[in-house]
């Protein structure tokens, strides 16, 4: 679990809130990677795109469509926020797969912050835009009257569980993947089973690439689904 330890980059014992740590380093690398892809990659502004511009356009189009389809036309103005989250999670997940790197999104602190930003943002947005009507989403009007109070309790609980599942899912997936790779890598030191272990590491690495992308996608689409409650049409 060495790989998950937060430590100051320039010596020192304590990790204060402002200390420059390996987290800071890899967050910074994520920023640079995003700038490289989205800004430097698109500098040509070509009608016929270069490869890097194609990737940037693909990501843009993918998230833009997702926001538009899930949240409806009103949600498109929140596209930059969703795009920020998606780019960060995607790039951080992928950077984490570089050997010896630090995976920022495997930390609950990071994912909880992200999930809370989404949760608080969506809740405040819903209350501001819809007012008390926002609370109507807990009152399932399509259910029989007798069931509604019960459903309301369930809905409220599920609403408040959202940030938990939202954040633990991401951190858990990434951490588990890295831990499994680490376990197999540990077996690789035993000569007898090392070919199997190395094969397993390769296979799991491929799987983790998929997981990194899929979890970024899942995180983003859940954000869109939550956003829909705040800005979209009637729920349920």
């Amino acid at each position, binding site marked *: 679990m060495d790989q998950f330890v937060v*430590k100051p980059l320039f010596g020192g014992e304590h990790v204060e809130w402002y200390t420059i*740590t390996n987290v800071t380093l890899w967050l910074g690398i994520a920023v640079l990677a995003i700038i490289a892809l989205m800004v430097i990659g698109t500098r040509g502004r070509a009608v016929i795109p270069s490869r890097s511009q194609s990737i940037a356009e693909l990501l843009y189009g993918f998230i833009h469509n997702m926001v538009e389809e899930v949240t409806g036309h009103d949600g498109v103005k929140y596209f930059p926020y969703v795009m*920020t989250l998606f780019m960060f999670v995607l790039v951080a997940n992928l950077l984490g797969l570089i050997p010896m790197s630090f995976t920022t999104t495997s930390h609950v*602190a990071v994912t909880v912050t992200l999930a809370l930003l989404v949760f608080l943002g969506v809740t405040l947005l819903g209350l501001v835009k819809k007012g008390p009507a926002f609370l109507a989403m807990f009152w399932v009007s399509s259910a029989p009257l007798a069931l509604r109070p019960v459903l309301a309790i369930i809905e409220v609980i599920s609403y408040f569980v959202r940030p938990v599942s939202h954040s633990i899912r991401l951190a858990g997936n990434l951490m588990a993947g890295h831990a499994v790779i680490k376990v197999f890598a540990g077996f690789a030191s035993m000569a007898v089973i090392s070919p199997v272990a190395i094969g397993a590491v390769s296979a799991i690495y491929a799987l983790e690439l998929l997981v990194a992308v899929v979890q970024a996608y899942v995180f983003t689409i859940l954000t869109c689904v939550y956003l829909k409650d705040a800005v979209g049409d009637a729920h349920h």
Partner: protein
Amino acid sequence: MATEAHGGAAAEHAVGMPQLDVTTWPNQIFWLLVTLVVIYFVLTRIALPRIGAVLAERRGTITNDLTAAEELKQKAVEAERAYNEALARARADAAKIVAEARAEIQKDLAAATAQADAEISAKASQSEARIGEIRAGAVAAVTEVATDTAHELVAALGGKSDAQGVSAAVSARLKG
């Protein structure tokens, strides 16, 4: 593996997973927020407007190209129609010219034929007259030659030729 002691600051707090070491949380959260703000500004100030503009421009270009293609196609159809019209008109003109030329030629031909007929008939009557003359000349010549020959024959045979008698005999023979 998780709880092995590592040197350094974090190990003191290592209660298990480093993720649950809340002493590092403020640090992570602070730098995460800084990161998100930076990414947000980079995306909204530079990247997203640029990509959006490129996509819009591409859509515009494609639409323009399609419109231009549609126009060109329309023009091509028009050009083809004009060509066909011109062709038909040219054909009609040609037919008219041919007909006119034919009529002209026909007229000339009729005139020439009539003239030729007249000349031929004139020549024919002339020829007939000459043939008559020649025939008459020939008959006279034959009569003369025959008369002379008969004279000579008669004389050669020792007879006394009688000019009257010989002539009469010759003309009687010639008629026969």
